[in-house]
C-alpha cells in the first residue's frame, strides 16, 4: 500500500496507512482527483463522515485491537471532542444512529438465521408428515368428508387471522359511520 500523503512516522502497517489516507485525503469535487484534506479546517459535515468512518474502523472482535483500531479510536475521540465543542448534541445523535445501525444489522442477521432454520430438514419433515397423515385420512374416510373438515378448519383459521380481523374491524367502523349518518339524516329537522 503506497502512502498517498506521506507521513513521517515509521512502523505503520498497511491497514493504518490505508485508514490515514482515507482521513487525510478527499476527492476533489471538480476533477475527482485525490487531494489532501486540511484537518485543521474540517467542516462539521465532513467531521461527521469521518466519525462514521472511524467508528467502523475502531471496532475489533475477540482478537486484541490492531494498530489501525487503536489509531482510529484515538482519532475518533479527538474528532468527537471537537465536534461536541461546536454542536454538543451531535455526538449523542451519532451514537444513537450507530446503535440503530447495529440493531438493524442484528435484525438482518436474525432474519437470515430464521430463513436458514426454515430450510432445514426438520420443518419440511413436519409438513410432509402432516400431508401423509391427511392422505391416510383420505384413504380411511371418504374424500368428501375430508373436504368438509378441511374447509371448516381453513374457514375457522381464516376467521381468526389478522387479515380477517382487520377487514371485519374496518367493516364495523364503516357500518357504524353509515348508521350514524343515516340516523342524523332521519332526525334532521
Amino acid at each position, binding site marked *: 500500500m503506497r502512502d498517498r500523503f506521506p507521513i513521517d512516522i515509521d512502523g505503520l502497517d498497511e491497514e493504518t496507512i490505508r485508514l490515514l489516507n482515507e482521513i487525510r485525503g478527499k476527492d476533489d469535487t471538480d476533477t475527482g482527483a485525490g487531494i489532501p484534506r486540511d484537518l485543521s479546517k474540517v467542516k462539521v459535515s465532513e467531521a461527521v463522515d469521518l466519525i462514521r468512518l472511524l467508528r467502523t474502523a475502531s471496532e475489533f472482535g475477540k482478537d486484541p485491537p490492531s494498530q489501525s483500531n487503536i489509531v482510529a479510536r484515538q482519532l475518533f475521540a479527538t474528532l468527537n471532542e471537537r465536534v461536541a465543542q461546536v454542536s454538543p448534541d451531535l455526538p449523542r445523535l451519532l451514537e444513537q444512529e450507530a446503535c440503530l445501525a447495529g440493531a438493524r444489522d442484528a435484525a438482518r442477521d436474525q432474519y437470515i438465521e430464521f430463513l436458514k432454520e426454515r430450510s432445514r430438514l426438520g420443518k419440511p419433515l413436519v409438513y410432509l408428515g402432516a400431508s*401423509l397423515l391427511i*392422505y391416510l385420512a*383420505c384413504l380411511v374416510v371418504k374424500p368428501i368428508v375430508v373436504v368438509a373438515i378441511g374447509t371448516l378448519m*381453513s374457514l375457522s383459521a381464516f376467521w381468526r387471522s389478522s*387479515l380477517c*380481523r382487520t377487514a371485519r374491524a374496518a367493516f364495523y367502523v364503516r357500518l357504524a359511520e353509515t348508521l350514524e349518518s343515516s340516523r342524523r339524516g332521519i332526525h334532521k329537522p
Partner: protein
Amino acid sequence: MLYIKAAFTILSMWLVVRSNWLHNLFAGSDPFNWFIGAIGTAAVVGAVVRIIL
C-alpha cells in the same frame, strides 16, 4: 401407478402447507393458526386431487 398417484397427492398437499401465501393469509395472534389453516387447505386440495385422480 397407485404409488405415483399417492406421491402426486402428497406432493400437492406438501406444497400447499409450505406455501408462504397461506402463511400470510392465516397469520394471526395464535402462532399455530396459520398451520391449522394450511393443513385444512391441504386437506381440501389433497381430497380434491384424490377425487380427480
